[in-house]
Each structure stands twice: as structure tokens, then as C-alpha cells.
């Protein structure tokens, strides 16, 4: 997870001087001739890995989604081709559409909260003195480092109905209805806790990335705008934001895509329950396939997720390649 996260962080500019389209070492005809079969041998394991562990599973998912594939076919084989029957079943299932709607709500709430909070934290961090800034950045990194399953367990403890510190704090503040409030028994409450957990875990990456983007805004621009009489908000809108816009877009796309990674938090915390209250698409797919033994329907739901995601992915790649200017 974190490996992918690191990608969007702009690397120190000084580290990559003068990268133009042809690789530096390959300039000239001679080195191309000398390369011979070597590059292919070097990338072969990576290509094989991608083919077997990514392309093949994806193709297999497509195939299964067009078959009648249940427990019997899993054990005995001989799955029958049924065309779009699984997709028809899926799309005519009202539960599926509720899950899709919930997925979008979950995504929207998460992404908006993450982006707004991260932007505020980044702007704040930029204005802080050295000591405070170090303190904020260090604690962001620490929260970021917290393993997902550990953080999920801790949040369950924080929101424990009897001895949870949150219920204690709310009761002390005078909200007596929160005494022994069973957060995980109520759909909306469980949903809210999951949103809180995902936001808590996602803000650090977004804030640190946006902060490092903010530091690239030239100080002279601020200076001259202030001399010209621009207010703080005007500077933010007309100077700061245009400069950091590409990074904001990248982070936004990543956060949208990473919504689906909340699978782990949801599975560990609620398994999609109570009832269906926290079931989003990947959870629905796995439940259908592995718990309900409808591997065909599960695969179809997974592919629906991929299709939903790919729109955002295309946006992400366009933005990134515009940034990278080199492949």
C-alpha cells in the first residue's frame, strides 16, 4: 500500500537532472548494438511476473464472469459458458445497486474529507515555525506508518461501547445518550467510524504530499502579489492553487482509487455489517464469491469495480504523464 502511495510524492528535483527521452546511457548507435539480448533477459522475469500474476488473473476473472462457476465447477471443473447471464443477474439485483450507491457515498465522503483536511493541514504546516512544523510532520508520518490492521483494532478499542475512550469523552461532555453506545451495532455509526478510520489513515500521505508541493511555490510570487495588495485568500486562489493544482489532481485521483483499499479495514472491523451497512463493492464481490460460493457473480462484481475505477485511472495517468513528460 505504502509502496504505491509513495509514487505520487514529487521526488526531490535535484535528484533527476536533465532526464530527456532517450536514456542517458543509451546515447549513440554503438550501445544499442552492444545491448543485444541483454535488456530482454533483464526484463523477462518482471514481464513473466506481470503476465502470470496480473494479466492472467484478470483474464481469468473475465472468463469466470461469463461462466456458470460455483462450488461444483470449482472442484470438478467443466464450467459452462453462459454469456452475459451473470451480468444480467447482477445488474437486476437491487442489493447490487444499493452497494454501488453506498460505494459512491463512501468514496465521496472520504475523498472530500481527506482533500479538505489535508489541504488545511498542508497550508497550516507551511506557516508554522521550524519546531512546530517538525512536530506536525513527524506525527503525520507516525500515523501514516500505523499498519492497517493494527489501526483498525485500535479504533475498535477507541469506540468500545463499555470502556471506549470516545464514549467516555462524549458522556463527560454531556452527551448522555452515548453512555455504552454500541457503535458497531448501528449501520450509520459503523459507517462513520470506518470513514473516520480511512480519513485518519489517508490524510498524512495527502497532507505531506500537498505540503511538499506548496514548498515549490516561489516566494517571490507571494511577495509581489502582496505588494500589489492581494489578500490572503486571493493569493491562495490565484497563485498558490494554480501551482499545486497538478499535484492536487494526482492526490485526488489516488485517493479515489484507494477508496477500494478500505476493503481491509471493512473486512477486519465489520465484514460489511451490521446488515449490509458497510458493504462496498470489493467487500460485496468477495462475500458473493467466497462466502456465497458464487464465484461467477463475484468475478462480475469485481470487474464492475475495475470498470468504475478505470475512468479515474485514465485521468490519473493523463495527469501523471503530463507531469513526468517522459515515459
Amino acid at each position, binding site marked *: 500500500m505504502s509502496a504505491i502511495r509513495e509514487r505520487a510524492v514529487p521526488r526531490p528535483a535535484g535528484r533527476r537532472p536533465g532526464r530527456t527521452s532517450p536514456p542517458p546511457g543509451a546515447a549513440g548507435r554503438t550501445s544499442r548494438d552492444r545491448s543485444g539480448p*541483454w535488456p530482454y533477459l533483464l526484463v523477462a522475469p518482471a514481464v513473466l511476473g506481470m503476465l502470470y500474476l496480473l494479466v492472467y488473473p484478470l483474464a481469468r476473472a473475465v472468463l*469466470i464472469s461469463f461462466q456458470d462457476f460455483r462450488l461444483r465447477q470449482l472442484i470438478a471443473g467443466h464450467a459452462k459458458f453462459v454469456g452475459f447471464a451473470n451480468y444480467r443477474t447482477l445488474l437486476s439485483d437491487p442489493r447490487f445497486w444499493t452497494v454501488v450507491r453506498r460505494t459512491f457515498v463512501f468514496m465521496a465522503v472520504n475523498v472530500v474529507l481527506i482533500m479538505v483536511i489535508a489541504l488545511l493541514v498542508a497550508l497550516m504546516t507551511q506557516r508554522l515555525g521550524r519546531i512546530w512544523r517538525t*512536530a506536525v510532520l513527524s*506525527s503525520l*508520518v507516525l500515523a501514516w*506508518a500505523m499498519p492497517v490492521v493494527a489501526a483498525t*483494532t485500535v479504533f475498535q478499542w477507541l469506540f468500545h461501547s463499555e470502556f471506549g475512550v470516545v464514549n467516555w469523552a462524549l458522556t463527560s461532555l454531556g452527551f448522555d445518550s452515548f453512555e455504552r453506545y454500541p457503535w458497531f451495532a448501528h449501520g450509520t455509526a459503523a459507517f462513520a467510524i470506518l470513514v473516520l478510520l480511512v480519513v485518519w489513515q489517508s490524510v498524512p500521505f495527502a497532507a505531506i504530499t500537498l505540503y511538499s508541493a506548496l514548498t*515549490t511555490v516561489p516566494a517571490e510570487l507571494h511577495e509581489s502579489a502582496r505588494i500589489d495588495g492581494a489578500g490572503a485568500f486571493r493569493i491562495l486562489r490565484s497563485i498558490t492553487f494554480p501551482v499545486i493544482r497538478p499535484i492536487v489532481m494526482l492526490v485526488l485521483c489516488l485517493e479515489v482509487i484507494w477508496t477500494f483499499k478500505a476493503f481491509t479495514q471493512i473486512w477486519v472491523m465489520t465484514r460489511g455489517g451490521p446488515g449490509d451497512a458497510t458493504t462496498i463493492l470489493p467487500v460485496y464481490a468477495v462475500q458473493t464469491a467466497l462466502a456465497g460460493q458464487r464465484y461467477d457473480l463475484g468475478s462480475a462484481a469485481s470487474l464492475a469495480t475495475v470498470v468504475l475505477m478505470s475512468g479515474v485511472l485514465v485521468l490519473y495517468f493523463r495527469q501523471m504523464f503530463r507531469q513526468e513528460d517522459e515515459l
Partner: protein
Amino acid sequence: MSVTSPDTPVRRRSTVRRLRRLPLHAGAALTVLVCLFPVYWMAVTAFKPSRDIQSTTPQFVPHTWTLEHFRTAVHAAGFARFWSNSLLVTVGAVLLSLVIGCGAAFAVARMRWRGRRQFVLAVFVAQMAPWESLIIPVYIIARDTDMLDRLLTLTLVYFMVTLPFTTIVLRGFIATIPPELEEAARVDGCTRFGAFRRIALPLLAPGLMATSLFGFITAWNEFAYANFLIIKNQDNRTLPVWLSSFKNTFGTDWGATMAASTLFALPALGVFLLLQRHVTSGLASGAVKG
């Protein structure tokens, strides 16, 4: 700057300034608190005796400290086993992706060959692979090829999860090492591989370090595949899965659960603190320098 001057109006201005910065510092304090409290609460609960954990008014600083919960967690059935499973899978995946990623990165950064652009594009796409949506086919393929319940399967999956990032980052690092250095070594009689090993590899050390640490964290934390690919042979579970089920077995023993969480989180937190310089100040200073 105004603080150094002893003039009263200036000093008054500095007080005003400090007052105006108050909301800013309050915000900073709130951020620090919100980020750290869950981590702090986990550790503190782990060190508190059970009767203090199960009290209606929480103690924010424990009066008495105990290691009892850590003892419970460590002595829980199979803890050492799951720990070593996690370590084995993680180290295996990281080493594999370092070796293979390094080769691929070298080919991409230093050689010109047909299909290079397509390969780089594929790596970028692979980095965004929808792993959450591939659980079902991977499960079925693993079942068909008799690879369920094996640590090797997990190692391979984690290798593939970390490989794209490793390749992309190492490519960036290799591209910054002047090829003339290696060419000079080859003029002096080194083979291409020898030149790479003696000249480029030492310069790559920070890149190798960063990618292996990030790979370590990814593999160490992974839950979904570990949960669905290790089913029958429970001895082959990894720590995250164990922790998620620990809660069910030790349902009411939150002290032990928090101790187990702490033990599980510790390596990741440690690695991140080691990396912190690269993550924050490195980024910031790099951005300033550029």
C-alpha cells in the same frame, strides 16, 4: 526578527503577532494530538493492568505499569510461528523484487531496446493494479495449481505488488548515475556486470534502502491475500491475519489485543521513523533546492 529588538512598540507587535498565531498553533497541536492519540492509546492500554483498562474513567497516564499483556500475547499459541511466517514472506518478496526490479530498472534506464516504452507503461499500469478486485481469480488459480495454504504463494503475490514501485524508483536512481563512471571502469577491463556491481551498485544504496523498506511495509501489513489464500493450514498464517482473529479469541482481553497490535505495529513504525528523513525533510528540502 522583531523579537530581538528591545523597543516597546516592536515588542507589543510581537505579542500581537503571537496572539494572531495562536489559532495556527492550536491547529498544529490538534493535528499532532489527533495523529498521535490512537498510537499512544494503543501502547498505553497494552501497559496497563486489566482492572485499569476496564474502568469507567480512563487513565491517560497509567498509574501502574505491567508487562503481563505482552506475556499473554507472546505466549498465545503460534505467535512465534506467525511472526516468522510474516518475516519469511516479507523478506522473500522484498529480495525477489529488489533483484528483478534492479535488473529491469537497469535495462530501462541504460539500454535502448524495442518495447522499452511499452514496458515502462506496463510497469506504471501494474503499479495501480486493482489488487482488491483480483482476490477471487487469484484464489481460484491458486486452488487449481495446488498453491493454496502456501507461504510461497503469498511471497509471489507480495513480490508482484512491490515490483512496479521498486522498478520505477530504481530506474530514477540509476538514471542519475553518470554512465561515464561505468564506461571508465569497463575501459579499465571490467565486464558490464562487473562495472555495474562495483560502480553503480554502491551509489544505488539509498535507492535500494528506500525501496526495500517500502516493500517491507507493504508486505508486512498485507491482510486480504493472507486472509483468503491461507485457509486450511492455519499454521501458515501471517501476523495481520493472526491479529484480526486474536481479537475474536481474546474478545474481552483488550490489554492483550493492544499488546499484540503494538508488537505487530512496532517494526512498521520503526521502519517509518528510520525513513522519516527521506519522507518529509528530504522531500521538503529537495523541493526547496530545486
